[in-house]
């Protein structure tokens, strides 16, 4: 199996706060193959967005953030690169789009300026060439009359349009990997559908791998090929999308799946509930982090933290009793 495009080993991201050091991402490991769409799913505070931004080292490393572990892009560990080398990679080999289209574009510069900026940083193009490339990029992401839009300002466009501009900006230098941090969460459902279709087309056309961060399992099912489920700074389950939805193993993943009101679910049934609340990052319990909310937790879970074991193929899970739980449930249903 040739080398994966991106390989993250035991990534830890620490933040200095007034109340001491907080570890938002605590030993994350997963890899992304060329042209694959990997879903990273979890609830707020699970560290999925911190993981995404750690890949591009977007946090301020002088005063607040520090990293441990490895982030290998085609064998090269990004954590050891200098600032200048990192700046060459950002927007060129790996680029990113963000959640809130209203605030992710600079309000005082035109769309054209911000698009051309990416092009001219990484490729030596004249202003005229860069402008033409910008117009083509806008057309590629489905924006009507791109010649006019180029000289408009962000506040003149709708949320959906702005997200298309963000995607155009990210694709300016044909990156190998696109990190999408909840790109459609702030959009309406019909606009979200358009953006998701666009991303699927671009992934096929350009063979560009995508790390898709979201909290919406519906979006994961529609877009991703493989999924990583995160809880409180750790990966608790990793599987192909079919396996994850048909045979989820970790109690948290199962709980999440049953907690969502399904479009074809039984309306008379009460929704499944995951009790309690997520522990605070500076008060992480010993043992399994999900123990406080897990109905199957026993003393072993409370004392010793399980690590990510391989169930079969590339289906991994971080739970001591996932096998017994599945058998018990299978027995109950039979």
């Amino acid at each position, binding site marked *: 199996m040739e080398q994966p495009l991106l390989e993250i080993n035991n990534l830890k991201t620490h933040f200095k706060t007034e109340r001491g050091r907080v570890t938002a991402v605590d030993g994350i490991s997963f890899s992304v193959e060329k042209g694959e769409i990997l879903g990273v799913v979890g609830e707020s505070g699970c560290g999925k967005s911190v993981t995404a931004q750690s890949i591009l080292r977007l946090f301020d490393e002088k005063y607040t953030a520090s990293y441990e572990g490895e982030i290998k892009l085609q064998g090269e560990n990004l954590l050891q690169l200098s600032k200048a080398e990192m700046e060459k990679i950002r927007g060129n080999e790996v680029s990113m789009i963000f959640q809130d289209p209203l605030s992710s574009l600079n309000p005082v510069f035109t769309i054209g300026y911000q698009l051309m900026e990416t092009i001219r940083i990484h490729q030596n193009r004249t202003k005229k060439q860069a402008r033409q490339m910008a117009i083509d990029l806008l057309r590629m992401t489905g924006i009507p009359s791109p010649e006019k839009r180029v000289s408009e300002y962000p506040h003149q466009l709708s949320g959906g349009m702005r997200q298309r501009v963000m995607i155009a900006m990210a694709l300016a230098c044909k990156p190998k990997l696109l990190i999408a941090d909840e790109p459609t969460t702030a959009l309406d459902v019909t606009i979200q559908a358009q953006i998701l279709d666009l991303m699927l087309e671009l992934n096929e056309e350009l063979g560009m791998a995508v790390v898709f961060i979201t909290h919406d399992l519906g979006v994961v099912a529609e877009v991703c090929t493989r999924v990583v489920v995160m809880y409180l700074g750790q990966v608790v389950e990793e599987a192909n999308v079919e396996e994850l939805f048909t045979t989820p193993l970790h109690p948290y993943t199962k709980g*999440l799946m049953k907690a969502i009101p399904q479009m074809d679910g039984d309306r008379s049934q009460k*929704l*499944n509930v995951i009790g309690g609340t997520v522990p605070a990052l500076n008060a992480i319990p010993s043992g399994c982090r999900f123990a406080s909310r897990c109905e199957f937790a026993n003393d072993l879970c409370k004392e010793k933290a399980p690590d990510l074991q391989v169930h079969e193929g590339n289906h991994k899970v971080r739970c001591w009793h996932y096998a017994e739980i599945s058998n018990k449930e299978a027995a109950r249903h039979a």
Partner: protein
Amino acid sequence: MPNQQAESILQVQGLKKYFSVKGFRSKSKNQQVKAVDDVSFTLYKGETLGLVGESGCGKSTTGRALLRLIEPSGGTVLYNNEDILKKSPREFRKVQKDMQMVFQDPFSSLNPRIRIGESIKESLTIHSIGNRNEREEIVMDILGKVGLRSDHYFRFPHEFSGGQRQRIGLARALVADPSILILDEPASGLDVSIQSQILNLLQELQDDFKLTSLFISHDMSVVRHISDRVGVMYLGKLMEEADTDTLFSNPVHPYTKALLSAVPIAKVGKKRERIVLKGEIPSPLNPPSGCIFHTRCPFAMDVCKQVVPEKVEIQDRHTVACHLYS
């Protein structure tokens, strides 16, 4: 479940809310944004009507107009067959006891400077229910009903999580024993696992308090789960209204079809063809003529461009406003 001969408790007829936008450029005279344009529906006792639609469709303005948080520009709202829009503030206060609202953002729906018990007690003091220490008892009792402890009474909002704050919002709405509950995206600001706790709690409370509710949300699957009937809104107009099962199993209006098909399903292998609407939601400053959906509708006919479609009842309590059916 919707019982057919249920007694109607609130009749909304031709509700309108027009915001006038001062013409910024000389040539554009004072334009009007028709945020809510001639919306009519009925709330039946003990039922939950879901109001669903994308941002800017006027669903939340409709909710606020019923409580006159935003003064409507027209239409009538009959409660105990009196039009509450015409009542004087003093008379309207009685209605305000019976109609309570639950808001979306857990982090700004509670006064940060006041202990949560006090915030809940406000409603009792305003409607002079019980005397001083009786009120404290009533509040502690309602705290228990929403899954909090009586000693939470003395804590400040910043000491609670998002889910707990929504419970406090529910307690505040229910403490004066209302008959109608208007919920504006009560669970949209929460994570899935907390959202399910709140939705279950909401259904229990609706049964205990025999409440009639108007549930406003952009999340189709949540609305489907909790509503008995559903109305779909687009750019200020009510496009279609029906019992939940009818609407979700065979939607009639092209917009409803597109809306439901756009919702991503957390199931694998069910690749259904999706109707992807072309173009963007038109700007409310100059909405399209005739049927406002015609610019994006795959079945748009000439008549749709000129004439505004009438609301037609194609089946029992299943109405739609579309020329394909009038």
